[in-house]
């Protein structure tokens, strides 16, 4: 075997590892964003029904309702006009230590963000919904920039389905 072949094989194996690594990571990939990066979800005119949930690892009722959200996600994920967005309000310092392991443990899917914009809460909380005081959990159903429902409390699976089904 020539040195060139060994090099090629090593490179190929390395490439496989890399792509596999990316794939398994994309399953529970969470992006740290500020509100400007998240805002298009609230204004997009793309006929997609967005379920947006604000949560945190330390929030008891959030942790309790997230499995319901995942069941609902499984039910609707094949619909191209449906997207679920989970926005963690955890401290970004806890991203590696708490949030990522929580995502794996709870098997959270959908689009995952950590909103790291704490000093502008007074701007983005009312921008998300004028009736929101910032208490979590909070869940919105949005389509074409219109808020179809806003709940500043935890939701049961049935309640969540009810809010989605009539608009999908």
């Amino acid at each position, binding site marked *: 075997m020539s040195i060139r072949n060994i090099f090629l094989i090593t490179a190929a194996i390395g490439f496989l590892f890399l792509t596999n690594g990316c794939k398994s990571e994309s399953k529970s990939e969470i992006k740290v964003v500020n509100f400007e990066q998240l805002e298009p979800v609230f204004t997009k005119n793309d006929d997609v029904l967005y379920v947006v949930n604000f949560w945190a690892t330390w929030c008891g009722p959030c942790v309790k309702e997230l499995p319901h959200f995942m069941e609902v996600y499984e039910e609707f994920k094949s619909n191209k006009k449906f997207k679920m967005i989970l926005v963690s309000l955890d401290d970004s*310092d806890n991203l590696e230590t708490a949030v990522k392991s929580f995502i794996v443990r709870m098997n959270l899917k959908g689009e995952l963000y950590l909103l790291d914009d704490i000093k502008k*809460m*007074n701007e983005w909380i009312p921008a998300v919904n004028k009736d929101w005081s*910032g*208490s979590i959990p909070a869940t919105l159903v949005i389509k074409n920039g219109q808020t179809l429902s806003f709940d500043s409390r*935890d939701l049961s699976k049935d309640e969540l389905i009810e809010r989605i089904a009539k608009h999908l």
Partner: protein
Amino acid sequence: MKTISKIAGLLMITLFSFGTLSAQGGYKIGDEATDFKLKNVDNKMVSMADFKDAKGFIVIFTCNHCPYSKAYEDRKIALSKKYAPLGYPVIAINPNDPAAEPMDSFELMQVRAKEKNFPYPYLFDDGQKIYPQYGATRTPHVFVLKKENNKHIVKYIGAIDDNYKNANDVSNKYVEAAVDALLVGKEVEVKTTVAVGCSIKVKK
């Protein structure tokens, strides 16, 4: 017949009051806040009326378990030390039902108050009667009240400041600004703010 109409009347009143309660969603700026009589961590009952010389109050709905409440613990103590001598004592109230959040039991409130040596009363909203009247929705949630003609008028509702995470990187000290304005007879500039916080825990 009379009884039936009486019952119907009562029912109407009940329905009506529930309706207005949920529609109003608690106090707005300028409303008169109710006094309360709640048990402090030292087992004594505390009311605002007990503070004869107070010019107003910094009422903070807060608790043991919530990370935001914890993050603000030292700042709550600092607020109390700064403003109680100026006539605006801090009164902390735990609005959570311990059946829903065991970390917020009265016993654990006593433990925390002792550990941190709270200079302010830390009261238990036993039966959760007070927080809905104020319209508190999260912890921490602050209501700055000013005594006017022996009424407690709501002057500020919201967050303590604009950075829960880092006290050294705060740009707006909302509560301090509000009380400072009231102390010199000025109007509060920023009257309401919002902030992320833990929902108030109610047993289902």
